């Protein structure tokens, strides 16, 4: 067991600012920190591929069955960090989804949780109730960095 300390800040200038004007008339400054008890830590950097078709649709980011036999709310789970580490460019979007391996790029695809454009990141708990998968709209090596921190208490 160990402690990790995540910290998130969201800031914006006022909309009247001459540089990086924000979306509101007032400035925004939000900060959240936490202290999380975790056990296992894993990280990896993945290549992504844009091919779609039988057997070609992305890959498993994190397999829930590797971490728990039953995803109980508030007990079993982890914290997941994901970043699209590609530079800006076409064909560099990476889709994160749940359920089965499939083409996640369809309009309104319900199994697509979100899309990470280049340099975008996410940090969220994961209850291990489903696998997390990835898919892309182009071939890029060393494209996706991800970490998982398993909650203490997960069985």
């Amino acid at each position, binding site marked *: 067991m*160990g*402690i990790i300390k*995540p910290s998130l800040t969201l800031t914006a200038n006022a909309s009247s600012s001459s540089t990086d004007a924000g*979306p509101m008339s007032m400035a925004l400054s939000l900060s*959240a920190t936490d202290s999380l008890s975790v056990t296992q830590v894993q990280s990896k950097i993945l290549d992504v591929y844009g091919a779609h078709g039988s057997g070609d649709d992305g890959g498993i980011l994190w397999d829930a069955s590797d971490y728990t036999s039953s995803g109980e709310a*508030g007990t079993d789970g982890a914290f997941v960090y994901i970043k699209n580490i590609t530079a800006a460019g076409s064909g560099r979007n990476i889709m994160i989804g749940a359920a089965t391996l499939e083409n996640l790029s369809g309009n309104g695809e319900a199994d697509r*949780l979100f899309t990470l454009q280049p340099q*975008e990141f996410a940090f969220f708990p994961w209850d291990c109730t489903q696998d997390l998968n990835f898919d892309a709209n182009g071939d890029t090596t060393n494209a996706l960095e991800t970490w998982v921190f398993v909650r203490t208490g997960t069985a």
Partner: protein
Amino acid sequence: MSKYITTTLSITSNTYTATSNPGPTTSPLAVSVSNLLDVTEVSSKIVDLGTVADPTIHKLLWDASDYFTTNADFGVDGGFLYFRNLLSENSTPDTLHDIVIGTLDGDMDTADLATRWFTLQPGEFAWMPWDFTNDIYADPQEINAGALETILFVRTTTV
């Protein structure tokens, strides 16, 4: 005209031999990332959860159809979501202040329920994009006022 927010995330830990807050690894961790995001609409709310009639009733947080008009196209339509459980842990730790986030219009604390995205324990937060491919619900364990803060920033490219 573009309008921007800056997001910064850090994840740190001490070594596992530290006498205070030992970490989960032999090396200290220091992950730090920052990004400038082009957004338009901002919507923020602090949500009461549960009702007297049904203390564990789920609640719609974000309705995807409120934010786009054509289709939920990857890399085009979407937003960024911030969630934080504003409750404190009870003096004897339990799960009563846990808040489940997911896509089911129903009870989401069943084991292995695939539509449960995650559980926020007291004080925990999440930051993630959202492609408007599902509506998002919160499911509490008991009635609490001011239980959850959530903010949506809509991508400028959303149509």
